[in-house]
């Protein structure tokens, strides 16, 4: 019996090796490159130059600006949608939800192309409002990722809590503020994770909407094409650091079910 047990667990060896080779090793490599210079000497110059150059700090600030703005827009649009879908008694709730997350399965470059054509008709020249266009593009791209986790948390909210609040004399607004909203925070946090990080790095949306300002993603690309792997790795490492802080913070509050929302609709 012991031998059988051993054999079954061996099944994970190929995948384990794969992860070590192609997930762990790349991390080691970028850590190495980030802290060395061209001659292979240990150095902190890449780190200090990132935080002392106005260009790179500007890029970081611009990325954060876009990410914060996109996350807020997504949240403001997604929350009412998710709330209405989860709390009301529509007959074909599942179908309506599908309609809202379906764009997720259409190639995002094609969706942004479509958006670009519409924006060009409305604005005439896209160059006049680069930040606004980027914001619209990102929101359009990431909205489904915010709707899904919030819907998941609201959907399983215990109705008796709302009834109790009503019985105890709370009106609708108060019930929402004191009961519904606080209980939906884990879903909101999962949604923020899904939207915030991609919108800091998705430089394709900016590219396609003719916004030539750099964000963190494009900065990596620029260093990469210039064969400056040391500085590129440092940017990658800084992004990884942001992600790490984010996940450590969110692991505590996020809703585990809602977290896997990328596959939420497919998972059955």
């Amino acid at each position: 019996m012991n031998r059988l047990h051993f054999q079954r667990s061996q099944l994970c060896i190929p995948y384990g090796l794969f992860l070590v080779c192609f997930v762990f090793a790349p991390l080691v490599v970028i850590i190495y490159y980030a802290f060395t210079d061209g001659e292979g000497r240990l150095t902190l110059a890449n780190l200090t130059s990132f935080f002392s150059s106005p260009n790179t700090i500007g890029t970081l600030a611009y990325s954060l600006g876009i990410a914060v703005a996109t996350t807020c827009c997504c949240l403001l649009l997604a929350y009412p949608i998710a709330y209405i879908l989860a709390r009301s008694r529509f007959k074909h709730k599942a179908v309506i939800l599908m309609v809202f997350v379906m764009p997720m399965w259409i190639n995002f470059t094609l969706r942004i192309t479509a958006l670009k054509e519409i924006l060009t008709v409305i604005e005439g020249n896209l160059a006049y409002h680069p930040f606004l266009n980027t914001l619209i593009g990102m929101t359009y791209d990431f909205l489904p990722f915010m709707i899904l986790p919030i819907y998941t948390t609201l959907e399983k909210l215990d109705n008796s809590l709302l009834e109790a609040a009503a019985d105890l004399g709370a009106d609708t607004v108060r019930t929402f503020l004191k009961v519904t909203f606080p209980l939906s925070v884990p879903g909101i946090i999962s949604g923020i994770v899904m939207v915030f990080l991609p919108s800091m790095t998705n430089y394709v949306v900016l590219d396609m909407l003719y916004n030539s300002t750099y964000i963190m993603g494009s900065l990596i690309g620029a260093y990469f094409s210039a064969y400056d792997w040391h500085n590129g790795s440092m940017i990658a490492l800084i992004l990884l650091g942001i992600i790490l802080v984010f996940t450590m913070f969110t692991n505590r509050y996020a809703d585990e079910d809602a977290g896997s929302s990328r596959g939420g609709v497919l998972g059955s």
Partner: protein
Amino acid sequence: MRKTFYIIFLSFMMVLLYLPILVLAVYSFTDSANIGAIRGFSVQNYVTLFKKPELRDMIAGTLILAVGSAFISTVLGTLGAVGVFYSGRFGNLVVGSLNKVPVVNAEVVTAFSLCILLIGACGVDKSSFVSLVIGHVVLEAPFVYVSVVPKLKQMDNSLYEAALDLGASPAMALRRVVLPQIFPGVVSGFALAVTLSLDDYFITSYTKPATFDTISTYVVNATRGSQTEIKTALWALSTIIFAVVVGMVILMNLTGNKNEKRAGAGNEKDR
């Protein structure tokens, strides 16, 4: 009253979401190259899409890459999940935590680090497609793993033991008893892997051979260029993809019974 307001709000949001895609769909059937001026009905865009070798190869390449890499990811991820499920804390710790990295990581960072390792440190030739396939598997396999694990947790473990008691070999018991129980997770993992591969831009652009394009990289390059014929042919492509996705969703709703529909929408059964 409130319900009417809700319906109006939801419909308005739907219109906003789908307006660009639908407008493009309408214009893809005309011969005009710009939105705004409808001229005559034409299917020229669709003809170009399937006649032009460059476009045809790009679409075929994208599909082959998506299905191929999804297949590898499904095999690797499923084996990994099953193995980890039966192994001790060590396997769980190593595979489980490494598996989370590509899921939470920004795709650019995954792409960049993998590219530095493969092309920079190991000297892999990009034109061999090796780096491209590995890149896509790195992106997809963790999601397959994530969709199989909950199925393993819900599985009735005594059935496996029963199969062994009745004389099945462990391999046979895995294939005939365990696999059918986790199969829904494997299928949704595969479907998810395909959609991730089709949607990916970053990993593809860092690891692809110079002469190969997927839909994403092709579209991005096309927006930089100014070839009208290709631009409007891509409208046709977007319309076809939209139609396929709508078709799949309708199919899923028709085939799934009520219970599955609920699970599909709310991830209910996964808990």
